Protein backbone atom coordinates (compact mmCIF):
# COMPACT_ATOMS: atom_id res chain seq x y z
CA UNK A 1 0.00 0.00 0.00
CA UNK A 2 3.02 2.23 -0.28
CA UNK A 3 1.69 4.23 -3.20
CA UNK A 4 -1.62 4.81 -1.44
CA UNK A 5 0.01 5.86 1.78
CA UNK A 6 2.37 8.11 -0.11
CA UNK A 7 -0.58 9.76 -1.78
CA UNK A 8 -2.33 10.28 1.54
CA UNK A 9 0.82 11.86 2.89
CA UNK A 10 1.22 14.07 -0.16
CA UNK A 11 -2.43 15.11 -0.01
CA UNK A 12 -2.18 15.91 3.67
CA UNK A 13 0.90 17.98 3.06
CA UNK A 14 -0.76 19.89 0.26
CA UNK A 15 -3.89 20.47 2.29
CA UNK A 16 -1.78 21.81 5.13
CA UNK A 17 -0.03 24.17 2.72
CA UNK A 18 -3.33 25.33 1.23
CA UNK A 19 -4.90 25.84 4.63
CA UNK A 20 -2.03 28.04 5.55
CA UNK A 21 -2.26 29.97 2.34
CA UNK A 22 -5.87 30.67 3.24
CA UNK A 23 -5.16 31.77 6.77
CA UNK A 24 -2.21 33.95 5.93
CA UNK A 25 -2.77 37.66 6.03
CA UNK A 26 -2.56 38.75 2.42
CA UNK A 27 -0.24 41.72 2.78
CA UNK A 28 3.43 41.23 3.77
CA UNK A 29 4.40 38.17 1.84
CA UNK A 30 7.04 35.71 2.75
CA UNK A 31 10.21 37.50 3.63
CA UNK A 32 13.67 36.51 4.65
CA UNK A 33 13.85 34.58 7.90
CA UNK A 34 12.63 36.40 10.94
CA UNK A 35 11.17 39.14 8.85
CA UNK A 36 7.68 38.24 9.90
CA UNK A 37 8.29 38.53 13.59
CA UNK A 38 7.20 41.79 15.03
CA UNK A 39 10.12 43.76 16.31
CA UNK A 40 8.79 43.65 19.78
CA UNK A 41 8.91 39.90 19.63
CA UNK A 42 12.50 39.99 18.48
CA UNK A 43 13.60 42.17 21.37
CA UNK A 44 11.75 40.11 23.87
CA UNK A 45 13.21 36.88 22.65
CA UNK A 46 16.71 38.20 22.35
CA UNK A 47 17.92 40.75 24.75
CA UNK A 48 14.95 41.90 26.70
CA UNK A 49 15.47 45.51 25.79
CA UNK A 50 16.91 48.01 23.38
CA UNK A 51 20.51 47.55 22.46
CA UNK A 52 22.86 50.23 21.35
CA UNK A 53 23.57 50.27 17.66
CA UNK A 54 27.19 49.69 18.48
CA UNK A 55 26.52 46.44 20.31
CA UNK A 56 24.30 45.35 17.51
CA UNK A 57 26.95 46.14 14.93
CA UNK A 58 29.60 44.17 16.72
CA UNK A 59 27.25 41.24 17.14
CA UNK A 60 26.48 41.41 13.44
CA UNK A 61 30.18 41.41 12.70
CA UNK A 62 30.61 38.26 14.75
CA UNK A 63 27.77 36.51 13.01
CA UNK A 64 29.07 37.56 9.63
CA UNK A 65 32.52 36.16 10.29
CA UNK A 66 31.00 32.96 11.65
CA UNK A 67 29.03 32.63 8.44
CA UNK A 68 32.13 33.21 6.34
CA UNK A 69 33.93 30.59 8.34
CA UNK A 70 31.15 28.03 7.92
CA UNK A 71 30.97 28.54 4.20
CA UNK A 72 34.73 28.13 3.93
CA UNK A 73 34.58 25.00 6.05
CA UNK A 74 31.84 23.35 4.04
CA UNK A 75 32.34 24.94 0.63
CA UNK A 76 28.63 25.72 0.62
CA UNK A 77 27.25 29.25 0.72
CA UNK A 78 23.74 29.71 1.98
CA UNK A 79 22.43 33.07 0.84
CA UNK A 80 18.79 33.03 1.77
CA UNK A 81 16.81 30.98 4.16
CA UNK A 82 13.28 31.10 5.46
CA UNK A 83 11.14 28.81 7.53
CA UNK A 84 7.51 28.53 8.40
CA UNK A 85 6.02 26.18 10.90
CA UNK A 86 2.55 24.91 11.30
CA UNK A 87 1.15 23.07 14.27
CA UNK A 88 -0.77 20.03 13.10
CA UNK A 89 -1.50 18.75 16.57
CA UNK A 90 -5.15 17.83 16.91
CA UNK A 91 -6.97 17.87 20.23
CA UNK A 92 -7.04 14.13 20.19
CA UNK A 93 -3.26 14.12 19.93
CA UNK A 94 -2.87 16.65 22.72
CA UNK A 95 -4.67 14.28 25.02
CA UNK A 96 -2.10 11.64 24.21
CA UNK A 97 0.68 14.26 24.54
CA UNK A 98 1.66 13.90 20.92
CA UNK A 99 2.93 16.97 19.10
CA UNK A 100 2.92 17.19 15.34
CA UNK A 101 4.59 20.10 13.58
CA UNK A 102 5.14 20.71 9.89
CA UNK A 103 8.07 22.93 8.94
CA UNK A 104 8.44 24.40 5.51
CA UNK A 105 11.94 25.49 4.60
CA UNK A 106 13.30 27.43 1.66
CA UNK A 107 16.97 27.76 1.16
CA UNK A 108 19.14 29.05 -1.63
CA UNK A 109 22.84 29.33 -2.18
CA UNK A 110 25.73 28.01 -4.14
CA UNK A 111 28.57 25.55 -4.15
CA UNK A 112 31.35 27.05 -6.29
CA UNK A 113 29.63 28.07 -9.51
CA UNK A 114 26.60 25.87 -9.06
CA UNK A 115 23.59 27.60 -7.59
CA UNK A 116 20.67 25.82 -6.00
CA UNK A 117 17.33 26.60 -4.49
CA UNK A 118 15.69 24.07 -2.21
CA UNK A 119 12.22 23.74 -0.80
CA UNK A 120 11.54 21.02 1.69
CA UNK A 121 9.12 20.05 4.41
CA UNK A 122 9.98 18.39 7.66
CA UNK A 123 7.31 16.67 9.68
CA UNK A 124 8.14 16.44 13.35
CA UNK A 125 6.21 14.10 15.56
CA UNK A 126 6.97 14.06 19.23
CA UNK A 127 5.44 11.67 21.71
CA UNK A 128 6.41 10.82 25.26
CA UNK A 129 9.34 8.66 24.30
CA UNK A 130 10.70 9.90 21.05
CA UNK A 131 10.94 12.59 18.45
CA UNK A 132 10.87 11.64 14.79
CA UNK A 133 11.72 14.08 12.02
CA UNK A 134 11.04 13.12 8.46
CA UNK A 135 11.61 15.09 5.29
CA UNK A 136 8.28 14.61 3.56
CA UNK A 137 8.92 16.62 0.43
CA UNK A 138 12.07 17.86 -1.27
CA UNK A 139 12.26 20.07 -4.34
CA UNK A 140 15.55 21.10 -5.82
CA UNK A 141 15.81 23.84 -8.41
CA UNK A 142 19.13 24.37 -10.09
CA UNK A 143 20.23 26.92 -12.60
CA UNK A 144 21.13 25.19 -15.83
CA UNK A 145 24.84 24.49 -15.77
CA UNK A 146 27.36 23.11 -18.19
CA UNK A 147 27.16 19.89 -16.17
CA UNK A 148 24.40 17.79 -17.65
CA UNK A 149 25.29 14.93 -15.27
CA UNK A 150 23.68 16.80 -12.42
CA UNK A 151 20.06 16.75 -13.52
CA UNK A 152 19.60 13.00 -13.20
CA UNK A 153 21.27 13.07 -9.82
CA UNK A 154 19.01 15.88 -8.65
CA UNK A 155 15.86 13.94 -9.45
CA UNK A 156 17.23 10.93 -7.61
CA UNK A 157 17.96 13.05 -4.52
CA UNK A 158 14.41 14.46 -4.70
CA UNK A 159 12.92 11.02 -5.01
CA UNK A 160 14.86 9.70 -2.02
CA UNK A 161 14.27 12.96 -0.14
CA UNK A 162 17.95 12.76 0.73
CA UNK A 163 19.00 16.30 1.51
CA UNK A 164 22.38 15.38 2.94
CA UNK A 165 23.26 13.18 0.00
CA UNK A 166 22.46 16.10 -2.28
CA UNK A 167 24.97 18.38 -0.57
CA UNK A 168 27.58 15.65 -0.09
CA UNK A 169 27.53 14.50 -3.69
CA UNK A 170 27.37 18.06 -4.96
CA UNK A 171 30.50 18.81 -2.98
CA UNK A 172 32.38 15.78 -4.29
CA UNK A 173 31.15 16.45 -7.81
CA UNK A 174 32.37 20.03 -7.77
CA UNK A 175 35.66 18.92 -6.25
CA UNK A 176 36.22 16.47 -9.11
CA UNK A 177 35.26 19.07 -11.70
CA UNK A 178 37.76 21.52 -10.27
CA UNK A 179 40.42 18.85 -10.27
CA UNK A 180 39.69 17.93 -13.87
CA UNK A 181 39.87 21.57 -14.90
CA UNK A 182 43.17 22.10 -13.10
CA UNK A 183 44.63 18.96 -14.64
CA UNK A 184 43.58 19.92 -18.18
CA UNK A 185 44.93 23.43 -17.72
CA UNK A 186 48.19 22.11 -16.38
CA UNK A 187 48.76 19.96 -19.45
CA UNK A 188 47.72 22.72 -21.78
CA UNK A 189 50.35 24.98 -20.25
CA UNK A 190 53.01 22.28 -20.22
CA UNK A 191 52.38 21.00 -23.75
CA UNK A 192 50.73 23.90 -25.59
CA UNK A 193 51.48 22.39 -29.02
CA UNK A 194 50.06 18.95 -28.45
CA UNK A 195 47.18 19.59 -26.06
CA UNK A 196 43.94 21.09 -27.33
CA UNK A 197 41.04 22.17 -25.19
CA UNK A 198 38.58 23.04 -27.94
CA UNK A 199 35.60 23.14 -25.58
CA UNK A 200 37.43 24.93 -22.81
CA UNK A 201 39.12 23.63 -19.69
CA UNK A 202 35.86 22.92 -17.87
CA UNK A 203 34.61 20.53 -20.51
CA UNK A 204 35.06 16.78 -20.23
CA UNK A 205 37.31 16.44 -23.29
CA UNK A 206 40.97 16.99 -23.87
CA UNK A 207 42.48 16.41 -27.31
CA UNK A 208 46.08 15.39 -27.82
CA UNK A 209 47.43 15.79 -31.35
CA UNK A 210 50.65 14.44 -32.66
CA UNK A 211 52.96 17.33 -33.38
CA UNK A 212 54.85 15.48 -36.09
CA UNK A 213 52.20 13.26 -37.67
CA UNK A 214 49.14 15.27 -38.62
CA UNK A 215 45.90 13.33 -38.40
CA UNK A 216 46.80 11.35 -35.31
CA UNK A 217 44.72 12.45 -32.41
CA UNK A 218 43.75 11.06 -29.04
CA UNK A 219 40.75 12.38 -27.21
CA UNK A 220 40.49 11.83 -23.49
CA UNK A 221 36.89 11.88 -22.30
CA UNK A 222 36.77 12.40 -18.57
CA UNK A 223 33.29 12.11 -17.18
CA UNK A 224 32.30 12.51 -13.57
CA UNK A 225 29.51 10.17 -12.64
CA UNK A 226 27.21 10.21 -9.67
CA UNK A 227 26.10 6.72 -8.74
CA UNK A 228 22.87 5.34 -7.34
CA UNK A 229 23.80 6.04 -3.72
CA UNK A 230 25.33 9.41 -4.53
CA UNK A 231 28.87 8.17 -4.93
CA UNK A 232 30.91 10.39 -7.21
CA UNK A 233 33.40 8.60 -9.43
CA UNK A 234 35.49 9.68 -12.41
CA UNK A 235 35.22 7.70 -15.62
CA UNK A 236 37.89 8.16 -18.22
CA UNK A 237 37.81 6.90 -21.79
CA UNK A 238 40.19 7.15 -24.67
CA UNK A 239 39.07 7.79 -28.23
CA UNK A 240 41.52 7.47 -31.08
CA UNK A 241 41.59 9.22 -34.42
CA UNK A 242 43.98 7.64 -36.81
CA UNK A 243 44.16 8.21 -40.58
CA UNK A 244 42.78 5.27 -42.58
CA UNK A 245 46.09 4.56 -44.22
CA UNK A 246 47.75 4.21 -40.88
CA UNK A 247 45.00 1.95 -39.61
CA UNK A 248 45.75 -0.52 -42.41
CA UNK A 249 49.35 -0.67 -41.32
CA UNK A 250 48.36 -1.25 -37.71
CA UNK A 251 48.99 -5.01 -37.79
CA UNK A 252 49.11 -5.40 -34.03
CA UNK A 253 45.80 -3.61 -33.72
CA UNK A 254 47.25 -1.10 -31.31
CA UNK A 255 44.53 1.41 -32.13
CA UNK A 256 41.80 -1.08 -31.43
CA UNK A 257 43.18 -2.13 -28.07
CA UNK A 258 44.22 1.36 -27.01
CA UNK A 259 41.05 2.15 -24.98
CA UNK A 260 41.50 -1.04 -22.99
CA UNK A 261 45.19 -0.44 -22.42
CA UNK A 262 44.30 3.07 -21.33
CA UNK A 263 42.06 1.64 -18.58
CA UNK A 264 44.81 -0.64 -17.40
CA UNK A 265 47.27 2.21 -17.35
CA UNK A 266 44.87 4.32 -15.26
CA UNK A 267 44.65 1.57 -12.70
CA UNK A 268 48.41 1.37 -12.42
CA UNK A 269 49.59 4.95 -12.76
CA UNK A 270 46.61 7.05 -11.73
CA UNK A 271 45.04 9.81 -13.77
CA UNK A 272 47.77 12.44 -13.98
CA UNK A 273 50.65 10.11 -14.81
CA UNK A 274 48.59 8.27 -17.40
CA UNK A 275 47.67 11.48 -19.20
CA UNK A 276 51.23 12.71 -19.03
CA UNK A 277 52.61 9.52 -20.54
CA UNK A 278 50.07 9.65 -23.36
CA UNK A 279 50.90 13.24 -24.19
CA UNK A 280 54.61 12.50 -24.10
CA UNK A 281 54.08 9.60 -26.43
CA UNK A 282 52.63 11.88 -29.08
CA UNK A 283 54.82 14.92 -28.53
CA UNK A 284 58.25 13.28 -28.21
CA UNK A 285 57.90 11.96 -31.72
CA UNK A 286 58.50 15.51 -32.82
CA UNK A 287 61.93 15.53 -31.22
CA UNK A 288 63.14 12.38 -32.97
Amino acid at each position, binding site marked *: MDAGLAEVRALEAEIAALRRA*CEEPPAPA*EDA*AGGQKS*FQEVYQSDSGGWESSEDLRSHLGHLES*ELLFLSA*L*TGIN*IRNYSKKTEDLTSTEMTEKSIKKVLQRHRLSGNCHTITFQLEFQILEIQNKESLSSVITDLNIIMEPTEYSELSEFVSRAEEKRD*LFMFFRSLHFFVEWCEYRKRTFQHFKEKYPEAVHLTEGASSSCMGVRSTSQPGFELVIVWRIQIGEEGKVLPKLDLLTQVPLGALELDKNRVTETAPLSFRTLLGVLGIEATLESLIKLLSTEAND
Partner: protein
Amino acid sequence: MELANTLSTHGESKGGVLAHLERLEIHMNRSRKKLEEPQGAQAVGSALGTKIQKLRRLRDKLRAEVKQRQAGVKASTANVEPDQTLDMSEQEVLERKRENLKAILQAYRFTGLSGKLTSRGVCVCINTAFEGNLLDSYFVDLVIQKPLRIHHHSIPIFIPLEEISAKYLQTNIQHFLFSLCEYLNAYSGRKYQADRLQSDFAAFLAGPLQRNALCNLLSFTYKVEPGGQSFPFCARLLYKDLTLTLPTDVTVTYQGMEALSTSWEEQRASHANLFRTKPLHQVFTSFARKGETLDMSLVS
Protein backbone atom coordinates in the same frame (compact mmCIF):
# COMPACT_ATOMS: atom_id res chain seq x y z
CA MET B 1 31.45 37.02 -6.46
CA GLU B 2 29.86 36.86 -9.85
CA LEU B 3 27.05 34.79 -8.43
CA ALA B 4 25.38 37.71 -6.75
CA ASN B 5 23.54 38.65 -9.90
CA THR B 6 22.19 35.28 -10.81
CA LEU B 7 20.97 34.78 -7.29
CA SER B 8 19.12 37.99 -6.91
CA THR B 9 16.98 37.07 -9.87
CA HIS B 10 15.41 34.43 -7.68
CA GLY B 11 13.83 37.40 -6.04
CA GLU B 12 13.88 35.95 -2.57
CA SER B 13 14.48 39.33 -1.04
CA LYS B 14 12.22 41.18 -3.41
CA GLY B 15 9.36 39.17 -2.04
CA GLY B 16 6.14 40.87 -2.85
CA VAL B 17 2.72 39.36 -2.75
CA LEU B 18 2.68 38.44 -6.39
CA ALA B 19 5.99 36.66 -6.25
CA HIS B 20 4.79 34.78 -3.22
CA LEU B 21 1.61 33.70 -4.88
CA GLU B 22 3.47 32.70 -7.94
CA ARG B 23 5.69 30.49 -5.84
CA LEU B 24 2.72 28.97 -4.15
CA GLU B 25 1.18 28.24 -7.49
CA ILE B 26 4.34 26.61 -8.79
CA HIS B 27 4.48 24.54 -5.68
CA MET B 28 0.88 23.48 -6.04
CA ASN B 29 1.30 22.60 -9.65
CA ARG B 30 4.27 20.52 -8.81
CA SER B 31 2.53 18.59 -6.10
CA ARG B 32 -0.45 18.15 -8.35
CA LYS B 33 1.72 16.65 -11.04
CA LYS B 34 3.26 14.30 -8.54
CA LEU B 35 -0.15 13.27 -7.35
CA GLU B 36 -1.68 12.66 -10.69
CA GLU B 37 1.00 10.44 -12.11
CA PRO B 38 0.49 7.33 -10.03
CA GLN B 39 -3.29 7.61 -10.25
CA GLY B 40 -5.30 4.91 -11.85
CA ALA B 41 -2.62 2.31 -12.10
CA GLN B 42 -2.99 1.19 -8.53
CA ALA B 43 -6.04 -0.40 -7.13
CA VAL B 44 -6.05 1.08 -3.69
CA GLY B 45 -7.35 -0.78 -0.67
CA SER B 46 -10.89 0.31 0.11
CA ALA B 47 -10.32 2.07 3.43
CA LEU B 48 -7.34 3.88 2.11
CA GLY B 49 -9.21 4.61 -1.09
CA THR B 50 -12.05 6.36 0.72
CA LYS B 51 -9.59 8.38 2.71
CA ILE B 52 -7.81 9.46 -0.43
CA GLN B 53 -11.12 10.42 -2.03
CA LYS B 54 -12.00 12.49 1.01
CA LEU B 55 -8.65 14.20 1.07
CA ARG B 56 -8.81 14.95 -2.63
CA ARG B 57 -12.19 16.61 -2.24
CA LEU B 58 -10.91 18.72 0.62
CA ARG B 59 -7.87 19.66 -1.38
CA ASP B 60 -9.89 20.74 -4.38
CA LYS B 61 -12.08 22.89 -2.16
CA LEU B 62 -9.04 24.56 -0.63
CA ARG B 63 -7.44 25.07 -4.01
CA ALA B 64 -10.50 26.93 -5.19
CA GLU B 65 -10.46 29.04 -2.05
CA VAL B 66 -6.80 29.95 -2.51
CA LYS B 67 -7.45 30.87 -6.10
CA GLN B 68 -10.23 33.17 -5.06
CA ARG B 69 -7.98 34.84 -2.56
CA GLN B 70 -5.29 35.22 -5.18
CA ALA B 71 -7.68 37.07 -7.41
CA GLY B 72 -8.62 39.36 -4.54
CA VAL B 73 -5.03 40.06 -3.60
CA LYS B 74 -3.97 40.72 -7.15
CA ALA B 75 -6.64 43.38 -7.39
CA SER B 76 -5.52 45.14 -4.25
CA THR B 77 -1.73 44.92 -4.63
CA ALA B 78 -1.53 48.33 -6.23
CA ASN B 79 -2.36 49.94 -2.90
CA VAL B 80 0.10 47.95 -0.84
CA GLU B 81 3.17 48.77 -2.88
CA PRO B 82 4.87 51.58 -0.90
CA ASP B 83 8.26 50.47 0.29
CA GLN B 84 8.07 49.44 3.89
CA THR B 85 11.79 49.67 4.48
CA LEU B 86 11.49 53.44 4.28
CA ASP B 87 9.74 53.52 7.62
CA MET B 88 12.33 51.36 9.30
CA SER B 89 14.90 52.92 11.58
CA GLU B 90 18.51 51.93 11.21
CA GLN B 91 18.20 49.92 14.38
CA GLU B 92 15.40 47.92 12.91
CA VAL B 93 17.35 47.25 9.75
CA LEU B 94 20.25 45.93 11.78
CA GLU B 95 17.95 43.78 13.88
CA ARG B 96 16.43 42.29 10.80
CA LYS B 97 19.84 41.57 9.39
CA ARG B 98 20.92 39.91 12.59
CA GLU B 99 17.92 37.61 12.72
CA ASN B 100 18.50 36.71 9.13
CA LEU B 101 22.14 35.84 9.74
CA LYS B 102 21.25 33.75 12.76
CA ALA B 103 18.71 31.81 10.75
CA ILE B 104 21.18 31.17 7.93
CA LEU B 105 23.77 29.93 10.40
CA GLN B 106 21.21 27.50 11.76
CA ALA B 107 20.19 26.42 8.30
CA TYR B 108 23.63 24.92 7.76
CA ARG B 109 22.42 21.86 9.60
CA PHE B 110 20.42 20.99 6.51
CA THR B 111 23.59 20.56 4.51
CA GLY B 112 24.56 17.77 6.89
CA LEU B 113 27.43 19.85 8.23
CA SER B 114 27.12 22.70 10.67
CA GLY B 115 29.44 24.24 13.20
CA LYS B 116 29.83 26.50 16.16
CA LEU B 117 32.96 28.52 16.76
CA THR B 118 34.73 27.72 20.01
CA SER B 119 37.57 29.53 21.77
CA ARG B 120 40.10 27.16 20.21
CA GLY B 121 38.51 26.41 16.88
CA VAL B 122 35.24 24.94 15.77
CA CYS B 123 32.89 22.22 16.88
CA VAL B 124 31.49 20.58 13.77
CA CYS B 125 28.17 18.79 13.90
CA ILE B 126 27.53 16.02 11.37
CA ASN B 127 23.90 15.10 10.78
CA THR B 128 22.77 11.81 9.32
CA ALA B 129 19.63 10.69 7.55
CA PHE B 130 18.28 7.79 5.55
CA GLU B 131 15.65 8.30 2.88
CA GLY B 132 14.24 11.41 4.50
CA ASN B 133 14.38 10.15 8.07
CA LEU B 134 16.59 12.41 10.13
CA LEU B 135 18.74 10.23 12.37
CA ASP B 136 21.64 10.68 14.82
CA SER B 137 24.16 13.52 14.81
CA TYR B 138 27.80 13.38 15.74
CA PHE B 139 30.33 16.05 16.60
CA VAL B 140 34.01 16.64 15.97
CA ASP B 141 35.67 19.36 18.03
CA LEU B 142 38.59 20.75 16.03
CA VAL B 143 41.43 22.83 17.40
CA ILE B 144 42.57 25.22 14.75
CA GLN B 145 46.33 25.40 14.87
CA LYS B 146 49.07 23.90 12.78
CA PRO B 147 48.68 20.99 12.47
CA LEU B 148 44.90 20.74 12.84
CA ARG B 149 43.90 18.59 15.76
CA ILE B 150 40.76 16.71 16.83
CA HIS B 151 40.16 17.60 20.46
CA HIS B 152 37.02 15.61 21.21
CA HIS B 153 34.55 13.70 19.09
CA SER B 154 31.55 11.44 19.33
CA ILE B 155 32.31 9.35 16.24
CA PRO B 156 31.73 5.65 17.00
CA ILE B 157 34.96 3.75 17.50
CA PHE B 158 34.36 1.44 14.52
CA ILE B 159 34.25 4.29 11.99
CA PRO B 160 37.77 4.57 10.49
CA LEU B 161 38.24 8.13 11.74
CA GLU B 162 42.00 7.84 12.08
CA GLU B 163 42.42 6.61 8.54
CA ILE B 164 40.25 9.41 7.16
CA SER B 165 41.94 12.10 9.19
CA ALA B 166 45.41 10.83 8.30
CA LYS B 167 44.49 11.10 4.64
CA TYR B 168 42.69 14.43 4.52
CA LEU B 169 42.61 16.40 7.78
CA GLN B 170 45.75 18.44 7.11
CA THR B 171 45.40 18.77 3.35
CA ASN B 172 41.71 19.18 2.60
CA ILE B 173 39.40 19.87 5.50
CA GLN B 174 36.26 19.93 3.33
CA HIS B 175 37.08 16.52 1.95
CA PHE B 176 37.78 15.26 5.44
CA LEU B 177 34.39 16.41 6.72
CA PHE B 178 32.37 15.19 3.75
CA SER B 179 34.12 11.81 3.80
CA LEU B 180 33.22 11.49 7.44
CA CYS B 181 29.65 12.41 6.49
CA GLU B 182 29.65 9.65 3.92
CA TYR B 183 30.75 7.01 6.42
CA LEU B 184 28.41 8.18 9.16
CA ASN B 185 25.37 8.48 6.90
CA ALA B 186 25.98 5.03 5.49
CA TYR B 187 26.34 3.59 8.98
CA SER B 188 23.16 5.32 10.14
CA GLY B 189 21.35 4.07 7.06
CA ARG B 190 22.41 0.45 7.56
CA LYS B 191 21.52 0.62 11.24
CA TYR B 192 18.14 2.16 10.45
CA GLN B 193 17.31 -0.66 8.04
CA ALA B 194 18.30 -3.35 10.53
CA ASP B 195 16.32 -1.63 13.31
CA ARG B 196 13.25 -1.37 11.12
CA LEU B 197 13.50 -5.04 10.18
CA GLN B 198 13.67 -5.96 13.85
CA SER B 199 10.89 -3.67 15.01
CA ASP B 200 8.40 -3.80 12.15
CA PHE B 201 8.89 -7.25 10.69
CA ALA B 202 9.69 -9.38 13.74
CA ALA B 203 6.91 -11.74 12.70
CA PHE B 204 8.87 -12.69 9.60
CA LEU B 205 12.05 -13.45 11.50
CA ALA B 206 12.68 -16.96 12.76
CA GLY B 207 15.18 -16.06 15.41
CA PRO B 208 17.18 -12.96 16.25
CA LEU B 209 18.78 -10.71 13.67
CA GLN B 210 22.53 -10.85 14.04
CA ARG B 211 24.66 -7.84 13.25
CA ASN B 212 28.08 -6.44 14.00
CA ALA B 213 28.67 -2.99 15.46
CA LEU B 214 29.27 -1.40 12.06
CA CYS B 215 26.05 -2.98 10.81
CA ASN B 216 27.89 -4.06 7.70
CA LEU B 217 27.33 -7.75 8.29
CA LEU B 218 23.78 -8.88 8.92
CA SER B 219 22.46 -12.38 9.09
CA PHE B 220 18.96 -13.56 9.78
CA THR B 221 16.54 -16.38 9.15
CA TYR B 222 13.15 -15.47 7.81
CA LYS B 223 9.92 -16.85 6.44
CA VAL B 224 7.90 -15.19 3.74
CA GLU B 225 4.67 -16.22 5.44
CA PRO B 226 4.88 -15.43 9.10
CA GLY B 227 3.74 -18.32 11.22
CA GLY B 228 3.45 -20.52 8.15
CA GLN B 229 4.70 -24.06 7.99
CA SER B 230 7.20 -23.44 5.18
CA PHE B 231 10.90 -23.83 5.77
CA PRO B 232 12.83 -20.64 6.37
CA PHE B 233 15.38 -18.86 4.23
CA CYS B 234 18.75 -17.78 5.60
CA ALA B 235 20.18 -14.45 4.48
CA ARG B 236 23.64 -13.06 4.96
CA LEU B 237 24.26 -9.51 3.82
CA LEU B 238 27.74 -8.05 3.66
CA TYR B 239 28.43 -4.37 2.98
CA LYS B 240 32.08 -4.38 1.97
CA ASP B 241 32.08 -0.69 1.11
CA LEU B 242 31.48 1.12 4.38
CA THR B 243 30.12 4.16 2.57
CA LEU B 244 27.16 2.25 1.13
CA THR B 245 23.72 1.38 2.43
CA LEU B 246 23.09 -1.51 0.02
CA PRO B 247 24.95 -4.80 0.45
CA THR B 248 27.79 -5.77 -1.86
CA ASP B 249 27.56 -9.51 -1.13
CA VAL B 250 24.25 -11.30 -0.65
CA THR B 251 23.81 -14.97 0.13
CA VAL B 252 20.38 -16.47 0.53
CA THR B 253 20.02 -20.16 1.28
CA TYR B 254 16.93 -22.29 1.60
CA GLN B 255 16.75 -24.64 4.53
CA GLY B 256 13.93 -26.82 3.36
CA MET B 257 13.97 -30.43 2.21
CA GLU B 258 12.81 -29.76 -1.30
CA ALA B 259 15.78 -27.47 -1.74
CA LEU B 260 16.23 -28.47 -5.33
CA SER B 261 12.74 -27.71 -6.55
CA THR B 262 12.73 -24.91 -9.08
CA SER B 263 10.03 -22.79 -7.46
CA TRP B 264 12.07 -22.49 -4.27
CA GLU B 265 15.19 -21.80 -6.23
CA GLU B 266 13.37 -19.05 -8.13
CA GLN B 267 12.18 -17.48 -4.91
CA ARG B 268 15.63 -17.70 -3.40
CA ALA B 269 17.19 -15.96 -6.38
CA SER B 270 14.55 -13.25 -6.50
CA HIS B 271 15.01 -12.56 -2.78
CA ALA B 272 18.76 -12.26 -3.23
CA ASN B 273 18.18 -9.76 -5.99
CA LEU B 274 15.77 -7.73 -3.88
CA PHE B 275 18.22 -7.57 -0.99
CA ARG B 276 20.92 -6.32 -3.35
CA THR B 277 18.84 -3.50 -4.80
CA LYS B 278 16.35 -2.35 -2.14
CA PRO B 279 16.58 -1.24 1.47
CA LEU B 280 15.92 -4.11 3.85
CA HIS B 281 12.64 -2.90 5.31
CA GLN B 282 11.29 -2.22 1.83
CA VAL B 283 12.02 -5.81 0.82
CA PHE B 284 9.98 -7.03 3.75
CA THR B 285 7.22 -4.54 2.98
CA SER B 286 6.99 -6.19 -0.41
CA PHE B 287 6.86 -9.65 1.19
CA ALA B 288 4.05 -8.43 3.39
CA ARG B 289 2.19 -7.04 0.41
CA LYS B 290 2.50 -10.30 -1.49
CA GLY B 291 0.99 -12.25 1.37
CA GLU B 292 -2.17 -10.12 1.13
CA THR B 293 -4.14 -12.92 2.76
CA LEU B 294 -2.09 -12.99 5.88
CA ASP B 295 -3.14 -11.47 9.15
CA MET B 296 -2.53 -7.74 8.78
CA SER B 297 -1.95 -7.28 12.50
CA LEU B 298 1.36 -9.03 12.11
CA VAL B 299 2.63 -6.49 9.66
CA SER B 300 1.50 -3.16 10.96
